[in-house]
Structure formats: C-alpha cells, structure tokens
C-alpha cells in the first residue's frame, strides 16, 4: 500500500491552493454577504485549466488522475464551498459522465469545450417533488421523429443561471414500472429555445455560489443529444453521483481542515484565565477530534480515488466517504465556532461561514439519511452493484496524457 502522493499531484495541489488563496479568498466574504456568486471564480478556474483537471488531454483536459481531482477540491473548499461546488457539477457530475457515457460526437461537441473551460456545465436531476426520490421526477421527454420535446422544471440546480450545458433527466415513459426505468438523460444547452433559468435567493450557505432553477418549455432536443439509451437515465444519474459525491467528500475534507487550521491559530492567540485557550484540555479535545475527522475522511476519499484510478466500481466506497466527510465537516464547523466563542458567532471570522456551507453538503448529492440507507442495504445484502453498460473510465496515464 502506497500512501505517498506524486510530485505532480503535490504541485497541482499547491498551485490550486495558491490560486484560491491569492485570487479569491481576499474578496470572498464580500460576495458571501451579498448572496451573489463571486464573479472571478469561473474565469479563474477556466483560465488555469482547473475545470478540466482530470479529463484526458485528447478531450481538452489536463490529463491528471482522480486523486488530483480530490486534492484540488480539498484546496478549493479550504477557501469556500462555492468554489468546490463548481468542480462538483462541472467536472464530477457532468464532464466525467460525458467521458463515461458520451458518444464520440458528444465528447467532441460538449466535453472538449467543457474541459477547456470554454463552456460551463451543470447537472439537473432534482425537482420540486423529486429530491431524495428522483424516480418521482415529473419532467417529460416526448419523442417526435429525430427530436425529443422536453417539458418540466428543475430546482436547486447549481450554476443554473451560469452554466451553458446541462445534463437533464426526464421521463420518456412516465408510466414505466418500476418508475426509474422510464427516465432518460439528455444534454441541453442554455441557448435552446424554451430553456429559461432563475436564481434561488437567500440560502443558508454557499452564498457566494449559484443555485437556481431551470424551466423547460417545449424544448426541442435532437436525438444526438440523448445521453445513453432510452430508459438508462436513472443509472446514468446514479453513476454521475459516484463522481459528484467524490468531489463533495474531498471538499468536505477541505472544510474540516479549514476548521482545524483556523481553530489552532485562534486557540493559541486567545487567552482566558491567563493562558492561551489551547492549554485547556476541553479545547485540546476539540482540536484532537478535528484532526481525527480530517485524517479518517481523507483516507476514505483517497481509497475511493484509488478505486476510480483503477476503473473499479466505487459506489459504496464513495458514498461512505461522502457521508462521513460531510457529517464530520458539520461537526468540525460547530466546534470551530465554539472555539472562537462570540467572535465565531460573527462573520468577522470565517468559521460561521464554514458551518453554513457544511450544512448544505449533508443534504445535497444524497442526504445523510439516504447515505445510511445505502450503506445498510449493502451490508444487509439488499443492494448489489450491477454491471453498467459503460463502466467507470480507469486512469491510464499514457492514454490520458497523450494528444491523440
């Protein structure tokens, strides 16, 4: 077993750490307070190639591996969850799905510009009555010759008003039994007639990020934009989550690290009873736990990343990493606020923002309750991975790094 990171991975991590710290952090709070997406985030991630970090060079990406994707997500969320959310939807939920399920034509038309950062991508599964239970979705896709006509409304979609491309899920067979067999995936673009979007205002967290809705009114989507087969949409949606949850888990390790680092600093500066609060055993205990949570969460993430590099199914391992890392990020943020006392309760310090952000991650991409059901069902033998028509794409450095 080899726990060491390569020089390449370490340098990529450091580069993203510095970019996020130097270019976004100084102005982040301003935008968080305004409940508005930070305008520099997408250009910065695009120009520096971060958006295509682990897409093969031949498809416009940088050709790094899945572990590097996790390191990048950790660094982004060390600054703010809104930066990592971009990677979750653009890279994790969308681009990697195109790599896994897309036709060569779809890869050329959508994946290449996304990996280059020329187009921004999102993922639209959730609806008003379909969150934890996506098979209940109501959007429809009716085939007419060479096109599908899409109708419906998606809610809680990250980058809804900023992305150019979306993978959306709609029912081609609303009466299918079981319900999930009627779902099909499509690639839609913002410029299609009948697509409109809006922003969700005043969220608890991820305030410097963008979340909103997509309305589809008789949107004509050519057959070439169908991702996978008819009725395969649910499986595609779930396989997207195997990558999305990975980025969320990795991001959560960044949030825990932020809590730990800020708490360590503050605990040494703040004095009560004549000594730094770091000398009080109850404060040490909190610090010790944060360290433990960080280490354990990171190991779970790295295991999932290793499986991904091998091209092995990792649904359970990724899910347990997501569940654990996000739950611990909420705990770490609560403790970080506690260590900061009243100052932690004010937005003068960053820890209250970590707490507001962390609370989102135990809801999206499979709430903690859903993650528990999933782990239990695997353990009880009620759930097994079935082979997919398109299995996860392993990381082969030679293939990923060569031009063609």
């Amino acid at each position, binding site marked *: 077993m080899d726990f060491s990171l390569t*020089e*390449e991975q370490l*340098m*990529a991590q450091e*580069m993203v750490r510095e970019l996020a710290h130097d270019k976004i952090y100084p102005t982040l709070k301003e935008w968080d307070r305004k409940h508005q997406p930070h305008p520099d985030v997408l250009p910065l991630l695009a120009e*520096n*190639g971060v958006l295509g*970090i682990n897409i093969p060079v031949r498809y416009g990406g940088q050709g*790094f591996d899945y572990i590097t994707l996790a390191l990048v997500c950790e660094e982004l969320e060390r600054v703010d969850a809104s930066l990592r959310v971009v990677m979750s939807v653009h890279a994790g939920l969308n681009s990697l799905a195109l790599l896994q399920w897309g036709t060569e034509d779809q890869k050329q038309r959508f994946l290449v510009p996304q990996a280059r950062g020329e187009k921004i991508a999102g993922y639209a599964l959730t609806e008003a009555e379909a969150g934890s239970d996506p098979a209940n979705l109501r959007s429809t896709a009716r085939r007419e010759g060479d096109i599908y006509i899409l109708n419906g409304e998606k809610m809680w979609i990250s980058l809804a008003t900023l992305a150019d491309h979306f993978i959306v899920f709609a029912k081609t067979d609303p009466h299918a039994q079981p319900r999930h067999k009627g779902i099909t995936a499509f690639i839609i673009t913002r410029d299609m007639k009948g697509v409109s979007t809006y922003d969700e205002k005043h969220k608890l967290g991820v305030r410097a990020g963008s979340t909103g809705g997509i309305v589809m009114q008789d949107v004509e989507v050519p057959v070439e934009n169908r991702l996978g087969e008819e009725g395969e949409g649910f499986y595609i949606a779930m396989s997207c989550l195997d990558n999305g949850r990975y980025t969320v888990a990795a991001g959560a390790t960044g949030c825990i690290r932020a809590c730990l680092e800020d708490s360590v600093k503050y605990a040494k500066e703040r004095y009560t009873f004549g000594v730094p609060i770091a000398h009080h055993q109850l404060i040490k205990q909190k610090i010790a736990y944060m360290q433990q949570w960080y280490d354990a969460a990171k190991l779970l993430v790295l295991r999932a990343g290793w499986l991904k590099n091998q091209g092995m199914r990792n649904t359970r391992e990724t899910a347990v990493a997501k569940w654990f890392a996000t739950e611990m990020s909420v705990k770490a943020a609560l403790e970080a606020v506690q260590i900061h006392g009243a100052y932690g309760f004010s937005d003068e310090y960053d820890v209250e923002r970590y707490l507001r952000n962390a609370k989102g991650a135990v809801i999206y991409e499979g709430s903690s309750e859903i993650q528990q059901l999933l782990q239990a069902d695997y353990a009880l033998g009620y759930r097994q991975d079935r082979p997919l028509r398109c299995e996860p794409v392993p990381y082969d450095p030679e293939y990923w790094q060569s031009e063609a």
Partner: protein
Amino acid sequence: MHVVVLTKMTPDTEATVTVNASGQVHWGDKLVINPWDEYAITEAVLIKGAHNVQVTVMTVGPEAQSEALKHGLAIGCDQAVRLWDSALEKHDSLAYATVVAAAIRKLGDVDLVLFGKEMADLATDQHIFQTARKLGWNMLGFVAKIEALDFAARTVRVRRLTDRGAEVVASRLPAVISVLKDINEPKYPTFIGIRKAAKAEVPVWGLADLGLSAAEVAPRAQVLGYRELPKREGSAEIIEGATAQEKAEKLVARLLEEKIL
C-alpha cells in the same frame, strides 16, 4: 539566444526562525521559493514568450533546492540546472558568483541573466553584483521595467528605481539584471508545466563539470554562528471611547503624557 534566471528556496516569511544554544539556525519547517525570484522567473518566461529564446533556471545548493527549479519549470522555463558540490557546503557569496559565472559560461550563448532583487533569508544581494563582475558584464540592479530588449542588436533598456528616483539606462548585452516587484505580476504554474517539471531529471553540475577547483571556491567569509534577536518587551493598550473624536482626544492625551509627542 539564452536567458538564465537564478533562484533558491528561502524560509516562509511566516516561519518562526529559531537559533539553538550552539548557534545553529533552524529556518522553520517550510521553505518557499525566494519571493523576489518569482518576479525574475516570470520575467524570464515573459521574455521567452516575446522572443525566440531559451530559458534556463538555475540554483546553487543541495537536493532540497530542486523544488525552486521545479517551480521554475512549472511556470515555463525550458530547462533547469542545479550547481552543487560538497566543497560548496559553506560557500560565501563570492564562491556562489564564481560557480554561477562558470555555469553561465558553460551554457555558452547566454545574453541575459536575471535575479530577484535579493535573497530574502540573508537579506543580501552582493552575490548578484559579484556574478556580474565575474562574468565581466554590465550590471543593471533594481529594475522595475525592461523597456526594450533587442537580442539581434544586443541592446537592452531598463527603468531602474533607486534612492535618487527612477533612472532609464541602456546597456549592451550580455548583461545581468536584478528585478523589483514592480516588474510584473508573478505567474502561477500551469498543469502542463507541472507535468513537465515532475518528469524532469535536473542535472547537477559539480566543480569538475564547471572546470573549477576547490581552492577557487574556498569561502573567504564564514558564518560562525547565529544568535536569537533580543526579545522585544512591550504591551498593547486599546483606547476606548464612544466616538472617534473622543478616542482621538484620549490618544493624544496619552501620547503627550508618555512624551511621545
């Protein structure tokens, strides 16, 4: 045509530097690229973008110094060379200059050598001037802008910032330049650069490769030991008051009382 840029790793500006009882210094746990060198490396890469030149990033030091070279490669330098020899263990600035000048001569077609303004750890820049002297080239220090650079005509014109004000100086090439932070905005590595850097095998040139003898680099100045700075005693007092006016009045009163004003 060839541009050489020199760099090294220095302690993080936030590091706690400590000195032990026997006068040995510990520079902290984390080394970073000498902050001034980020500008020099960026300038070299910008020159490469504008002219058809090759850029070599160079350092003098043990293996740990390779990180600065890798950083240079990741930003866009074409190749890296590390200059090191056990005889250089306790080198002084003149030995540094001797080695660097020999390496530049070995490369052969060098027109321009770039340095960051100083080494942040030792707060010294004499090695730069000594290198220029060893090469016998013009030295253009404290450069805030390269206004014109013509490799064909072998001329350069720079804006220097000195204590006496700004100064525009023209020189023939080859020349040695030390740069200020005004000169550019440092570049960040690119992922492609990182991959190249990670794969690169950096050659090490020892004294034999440079045609130098141990006597030529024997240190004439030696650091015998370091000492901790005397601890600064002081306390902070926060002036309270309902309005800025009141606070200012109290502050002035206190300053008069302490005979500071």
